[in-house]
């Protein structure tokens, strides 16, 4: 009941004309960002953070704008999957499997509409899940002391590679790189400086927003230059939409199952949206795909991963808001933004910044509705955007990113850093070292170190404090499982994913 009251108050915040406008702008920008191949959600949010700052938006409006971008990107990812057979972002990968064949059969509009409805259901249910679960978890999270947090951060790192992660060693290398960058600056536990070489700009460490924009956006630009992909992509033409109520009802059970599975995958740290969509798709194939229509353009094969990845995206907000531990790259970026706005995520967020949190949650509901309305009648416009040649698009993105970074601090040094991180990102991607662990390392490293040192200060240097409570022991067990499991289950899962993709390619070729 209390929750319902808060939620109503949240709607009062989200439904002010100004915030409604920001939600709509965010939803549109997000859909575009998600639809354009290469510009993932993490990227999109990262580029817009500096912009939100330089506009001097109040915290709630800035957050509403950016969470709408986040939600919109999850919707947008499917557009290029279906029309180009190139996922707009990683979680939309599974949508290619049945979406593109549907488009080839001349049912592109239906595929887009069904996936929009499935995305809506996934997002909606997961937001309901967030409303129910987050306050409960927030109360519980008070029991987290430094020792428990240390175990939790270890868990986040241990599961970083994800169950589908290919090369654990490369993930570890990337995370260590992030941790190393994170040690730069004043050590808050002792007040000493580390690796600052008397350069004043380094005292507060390296700003992770600069690192994110550099690693993702600038490296993307470098990749683009290398590929000379000057022209737009070839895409399937859009037909006139003929969608009956029956078609929608047909995909409803699939969407519901996909949403629930996706939400659970999202709440678990490390798993994220990609796993959510993958699990939903494979489960649905097992449950209803016995006659082998999956992979040949089955509408349910479009609905399942879309419901799954949208649900997972909102599910990932639960640990981020209540514990301050992000479950995916994009939530890590959102966390960075919260910290920059001087809002401390954690158990107290729901009592201290109730208006803000519930405003954002309400905005997710509103944004979701806007997205559904945008994505069915106005889909043609987004599709047109896909034909903008990247040679025009990438410079604009880079310009927006650079202006935004400079506007936050007015420091040219930050721009050099951004370019430096761009080069680093390019190099790492060439070496197939994932970028998200670098960001998480930078973001979580100082927290993890602080937790460990706090725990040891409390216990007078006795290390057993780290596993002295039932809660921390539980987290350690999950962490170790998360680290070991990929070696056992990973090869199996990867073979299945590869098999599914091979099958799809055989259709395309």
């Amino acid at each position, binding site marked *: 009941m209390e929750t319902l009251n808060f939620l109503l108050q949240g709607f009062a915040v989200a439904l002010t004309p100004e915030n409604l406008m920001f939600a709509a702008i965010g939803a549109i920008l997000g859909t575009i960002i998600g639809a354009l191949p290469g510009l993932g959600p993490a990227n999109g949010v990262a580029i817009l953070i500096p912009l939100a700052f330089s506009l001097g938006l109040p915290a709630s409006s800035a957050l509403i704008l950016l969470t709408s971008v986040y939600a919109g990107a999850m919707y947008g990812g499917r557009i290029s999957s279906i029309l180009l057979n190139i996922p707009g972002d990683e979680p939309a990968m599974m949508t290619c499997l049945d979406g593109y064949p549907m488009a080839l059969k001349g049912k592109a509009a239906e595929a887009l509409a069904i996936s929009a409805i499935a995305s809506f259901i996934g997002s909606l249910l997961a937001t309901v899940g967030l409303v129910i679960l987050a306050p409960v978890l927030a109360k519980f999270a008070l029991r987290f002391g430094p020792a428990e947090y240390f175990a939790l951060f270890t868990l986040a790192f241990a599961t970083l590679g994800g169950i589908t992660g290919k090369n654990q060693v490369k993930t570890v290398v990337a995370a260590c790189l992030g941790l190393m960058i994170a040690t730069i600056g004043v050590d*808050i536990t002792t007040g000493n400086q580390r690796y600052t070489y008397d350069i004043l700009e380094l005292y507060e460490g390296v700003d992770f927003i600069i690192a994110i924009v550099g690693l993702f956006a600038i490296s993307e630009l470098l990749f683009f230059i290398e590929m000379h992909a000057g022209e737009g992509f070839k895409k399937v033409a859009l037909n006139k939409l003929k969608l009956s109520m029956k078609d929608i009802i047909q995909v409803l059970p699939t969407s519901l199952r996909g949403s629930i599975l996706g939400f659970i995958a999202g709440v678990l740290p490390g798993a994220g949206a990609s796993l959510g969509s993958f699990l939903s798709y494979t489960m649905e194939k097992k449950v209803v795909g016995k006659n082998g229509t999956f992979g040949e353009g089955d509408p349910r094969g479009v609905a399942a991963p879309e419901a799954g990845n949208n649900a997972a995206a909102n599910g990932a907000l639960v640990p981020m808001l209540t514990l301050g531990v992000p479950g995916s790259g994009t939530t890590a970026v959102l966390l960075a933004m919260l910290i920059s706005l001087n809002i401390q995520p954690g158990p*107290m967020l729901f009592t201290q910044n109730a208006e803000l949190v519930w405003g954002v949650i309400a905005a997710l509901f509103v944004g979701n509705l806007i997205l559904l309305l945008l994505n069915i009648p106005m889909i043609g416009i987004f599709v047109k955007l896909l034909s903008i040649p990247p040679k025009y698009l990438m410079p604009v993105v880079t310009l927006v990113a650079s202006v935004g970074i400079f506007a936050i*601090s007015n420091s040219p040094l930050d721009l050099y850093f951004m370019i430096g991180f761009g080069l680093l990102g390019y190099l790492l991607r060439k070496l197939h070292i994932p970028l998200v662990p670098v960001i998480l390392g930078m973001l979580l490293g100082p927290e993890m170190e602080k937790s460990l040192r706090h725990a040891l200060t409390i216990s*007078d240097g006795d290390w057993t404090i780290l596993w002295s409570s039932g809660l921390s022991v539980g987290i350690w067990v999950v962490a170790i499982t998360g680290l070991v499991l990929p070696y056992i289950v990973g090869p199996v899962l990867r073979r299945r994913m590869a098999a599914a993709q091979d099958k799809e390619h055989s259709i395309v070729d």
Partner: protein
Amino acid sequence: MKFPAVKTLIATATFALAAQASAFEQSRTAECIAPANPGGGWDFTCRSVGKVLADLGYISGNVQTVNMPGAGGGVAFAHTISKRGDDSALIVAASTATTTRLAQGQFVGMDLDMVRWVGALGADYGVIAVSKDSPYQTLTELMDALKADPTAVKFGGGSAAGGWDHLKVLIAGRSAGIEKANLPKVKYLAFNGGAEAITQVVGGHIEAFTGDISEAQGFMESGDLKVLAVLSEERLPAPLDGIPTAREQNIEAVAPNWRGFYVPKGVSDEAYQWWVDTMDNVYTSDNWQDVMQKNGLMPFHKTGADFSTFVKGQVDSIKEISTEIGLIK
């Protein structure tokens, strides 16, 4: 109460300059550097004062807030000294965090005499608080426990070790009579912000919170936190007048985190005086009193020579206590 005294002081000190002071013409637009990212206290100081300056017509154009984060204000301090030495249309936001870092020599090669201190327009006072189920009911009880065993109470706060929140505990502890040798043994856990530290206190993982009243107010109203003492000279205005001061409990500890400004060293005396007079007028204006009311800023006002003396005194006393506990050698 202090206010007329300041006025008189300024009036006498600047009597000779009065004619020239009125001759000084401020430029149409001004700039306020907030030495941190948007959203923090310095950013708030710049934006709110900037708005009042423009609304009241002291600056005919607008006051632009420029964020210059880095080194806890050090980047902006260096920038002011090296690049803006005589810019009379520039003010830079500062607070007790600035004086703390100056005192501890964290702005390498720079000291407080390299800029001119204009004035403070309000303060946030220090508090020491415990969770609602804590056995400690008064600051005296808490300090007695520390006297018996300096590790008995672990404090959490939002500044780095040796920072202002940490120093508040030590200032109170010293006044309460904790032995000098035992002061460095008092445990302080540094968090990223007041809220994070309070969460740990409410969760029962550490015993006490040290921070500002603005950080504690929400948690106090929700009943999670019990504020044992406010480190102000007198009780705060309602609705916070129920909190006893440390002085009432015979612990002479006053810790204001003031919000104010400095200007470059090289500005003319007329320009400096213009800023001092303007800040006096801003402080008494309804617009500013309204800002203070809405944002929980407590009365605290010093300008000109009075403020410069105060800043010097604060730096000296922070230096002294930091040396005592071994933070600076």
